[in-house]
């Protein structure tokens, strides 16, 4: 129904083929034994909860089984871009200049609640 662009399949696919896996760009410390308990606890348990731009990891579970990243707006729920694992987002809280949505439609400006100024981009 809702279409999400899989950067590996290179096409828009049904939302039901995907599911989210939480915050993106978390990297496991190279040497866990070198981490303090607190640092390891931060890695394990603490996640960002921004109002606005958020980078999330998703998986094309019923498709190519590839993990990839999504830049999503947590107020409008708009998916702003999708990109491969290992790549960096082009849209961030700092650079938030919305470009064509990665949700399928012949229109670029899909439904998106108007977000008031800086509130929407606070990380």
């Amino acid at each position: 129904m809702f279409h999400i662009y899989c950067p590996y399949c290179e096409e828009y696919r049904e939302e039901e083929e995907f599911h989210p896996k939480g915050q993106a760009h978390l990297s496991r410390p190279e040497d866990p034994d070198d981490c303090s308990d607190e640092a390891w606890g931060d890695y394990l348990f603490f996640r960002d909860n921004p109002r606005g731009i958020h980078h999330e990891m998703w998986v094309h579970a019923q498709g190519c089984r590839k993990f990839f990243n999504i830049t999503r707006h947590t107020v409008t729920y708009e998916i702003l871009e999708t990109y491969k694992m290992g790549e960096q987002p082009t849209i961030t809280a700092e650079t938030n200049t919305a470009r064509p949505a990665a949700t399928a439609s012949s229109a670029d400006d899909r439904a998106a609640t108007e977000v008031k100024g800086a509130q929407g981009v606070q990380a």
Partner: protein
Amino acid sequence: MSQSTKQPNRLAAGGSVDRTRTLKFTFNGQAYTGHPGDTLASALLANGVDLVNRSFKYSRPRGIVAAGAEEPNAVMQLGASEATQVPNVRATQQALYDGLVAYSTNGWPDVQKDLMSWIGKLGAPFMPPGFYYKTFMAPASMWMTYEKYIRKTAGLGRSPSEPDPDIYDHMNRHCDVLVIGGGPAGLAAALSAARSGARVIVADEQEAMGGSLLDSRDRLDDQPAHAWVTTALEELAARDNVTLLTRTTANGYHDHNFVTLHERRTEHLADSAPTIEGRRQPRSRLHRVRAGQVVLATGTHERPLVYGNNDLPGNLLAGAVSTYIRRYGVIPGRKLVLTTSNDHAYRAALDWHEAGHEVVAIADAREAPEGELVEQARKHGIRVIAGSAIIEATGSKRVSGARVARIDRDGFKVVGPVETLDCDTIASSGGYSPVIHLASHTGARPTWNEEVLGFVPHTVKGVTTTGGARGVYPLADVLADGAEAGAVAATAMGFEVATEARHVPQATVVTEGAACALYQVPHEKPTLRAPKQFVDLQNDVTAAAIELATREGFESIEHVKRYTAMGFGTDQGKLGNINGMAIAARCLGKSIPEVGTTVFRPNYTPVTFGAVVGRHCRELFDPERYTAMHQWHVEHGAEFEDVGQWKRPWYYPRRVNGRLESMHEAVVRECRAVREHVGILDASTLGKIDIQGPGAREFLGRVYTNKWAKLAPGRVRYGLMCKDDGMVMDDGTTSCLGENHFLMTTTTGGAAAVLEWLEMWHQTEWPELDVYFTSVTDHWATMTVTGPEARKLLAEITDIDLDRESFKFMDWREGRVADVPARVFRISFTGELAFEINVQANYAMHVWKTLFEHGDKYGLTPYGTETMHVLRAEKGFIIAGQDTDGSVTPEDLGMHWAIGYDKPFPWIGKRALSRSDTRRTDRKQLVGLKPRNPEVVLQEGAQIVFDPQQTIPMTMVGHVTSSYYSPTLESGFALAVVKGGHQRMGETVYLPMVDGTIHEAEIVGTQFVDPEGARQNV
């Protein structure tokens, strides 16, 4: 004008009903007739049925007020049979069909007799505003008693107690422009968008498209307005880029222009969908529309005025009076008084007059009404009383008079003498509220517009509101606005809209004077002592209740609503909310926008569960997975257990001496068979993941807690998998098939999650490892042959050398079993000698049956999951997800032997096992429990305490995770987690039960049977 004798209020001519055909229906058991084209409401009015319900709190008689979705009173229970009962149907939105059976939902037990007077008389003191809180919350136990009666009497209807014979559809749709509302604005929008080539869906909730044009006095292109509707619909229907959906309510606007449309496909035909060529038609269809652009052309709802006894049957909305006369040929009375704040409502008086009935007077709240409709009324000799309003209706079961007085709107008082006019019908109009429900669903707050005296919507990107829905009222403007909205939407989708595509018909211009703001009409007495002035008819909320709420300190409209229950009915206060806000504002000395805005939530009108569920019910609710041997299990009387989506044999009760074994008896027999002879389990549901690649071995070492570097081809190892927080997530055996090739098994329920887990770590952390994962769960069927006789049985049908020296415990071998290729694994989940045979799934039934052909002489016994559980628990083998719950480490399980602390790579979970929390010695640790009384089987989940004398709340120190009766031990036994349990061997713990019993148990090791492991190693 002559009247039909059977339908006293049916006009001889006019409207779009087919008077040549008669439809029979019953209401509250009484037989009536109507015509095709009627709604249930118009047919009831045609028959002179005044009383359609009793009110919720005060049990007051109520009649039909409106002609559309906003109707608060005529809420019906429909259905001729128990299975086809439907509650909460608005009679105004239900097309009449032959044989329709309707009952009042509020009227229990009899709408005519006021048997609810006990509550009605108690009414005022018994149910003041906030009564839910004040009265029912205190003696909590009494609520159950009240609730039953209040529900029954409160218009909530009832669901059928028999299975629904109908089926319901869901349909996904995509379009460029979704137009909601098929009135003048919607049709104009649809035309301009469709002419540009955009894919357009038009949804309208009524039986026919046209909206207000269906009963309009206006002319379009010098034709009656409804004639243009026909032309417009013909043009739209002829286009293959247009889908027209009538009887289709847009019930919810959701994120990203996702709109749910509820199409009632057969509810105008019968109470259950007809069959065509033996196939039942879907009764309703939920269209899940993802629209590029949404045009909201939802029009307006007229507001009634709030005056004394405004709830008596015979009080109607002015616009509804026009609709019943002009569309249905029904006049709901003889003598009309209109009370209004605006010109537009004059149509009701003109229509009434033209139908040949008496308009006694028009009480107009404005000092100097002027405008074409006012002039027409005066020309017809209708008395117009300016600066006045009806302050109170009189009558008992029906309006018999109207008390009219001069009022001071600003001072909120009656300023002149009261004149009582003889009449049987009162039409009222306090203006028009844009229907902003769907616009509210977008999350955008509406704002008050003083010019139109209503809330107008804000919308989000991709949504356009048009026409009455955004406060544009004159017909010519509405049409132009609609055409523009359609053009804007189509343009946004990349279509070019030519000038001529925006062409709309020429509307006669009717000049209307300005309306005045009037909501609650003042009475001679103060509101608290005046006759009841109803704001929310469905929930029986009066102006006095709102005033009381504000006096009790409620200032926000959201609080007032919750305190009085205003707007909490199934109609969501479509008629009353603005009036209620205006009254709260007056009492608080604030403006309406200062008091708040109205927020509406999906669904716009009630939707049956059937429509929501669609085909996702019964056997299609969730897929069922069967193993290759399923048919055999069914034929052998297995009881099944659901494990995820799998149907697994639970136990196989046998008929003994004409009586079917109980589960306990079957399990005891199956356990003994395995421990003494040989049993067989269908273990096909275990997850199987084929892992290949040069990086496979290294990868296993990182995801499992134990070591994999030296596992040779032909060998099998048990593996424990943790999350990076150090908690056990899954376990299973993994076999080395080749140097770079492994077969991993997982728990039945964990198969999909483990595969995704492996993929995630490979793709996101260690892409440099060359390794591939493939689910092969369904490709291989697994049967476990286990027991002292297992080797002898298997030897009869395999070419594999089963000698205990060459085929050791934790080895696997390839060969043929029952003449088909097989992998045989010498692993044991029962503690007995065991062979797990894997064959290609489509050969499995053959192999299974061959085993039974040879197994009879050894006493081969099929066993199910229950016996499997008993046997594994006797050996202390855990089930991940049952004995663990995401807070249990391998150390807590006492499985130090499965932790490779000295492995070079920091495997998943390792670091967490040295955090201070995971090092605590008082963590809950897995132990065995032996009940002091061997007959006791402890309850799984039962809490454990050290001190049974402690007063409640007692200190809980753990719980039972697995518990069974062991035929081998002839005793109950359990696995449990207990704080510091590993250091408490031999101590006694206590398990207090709900009934006051306290069980005693001794902490023991987890291996109850054969702790040395001798039996599996023979």
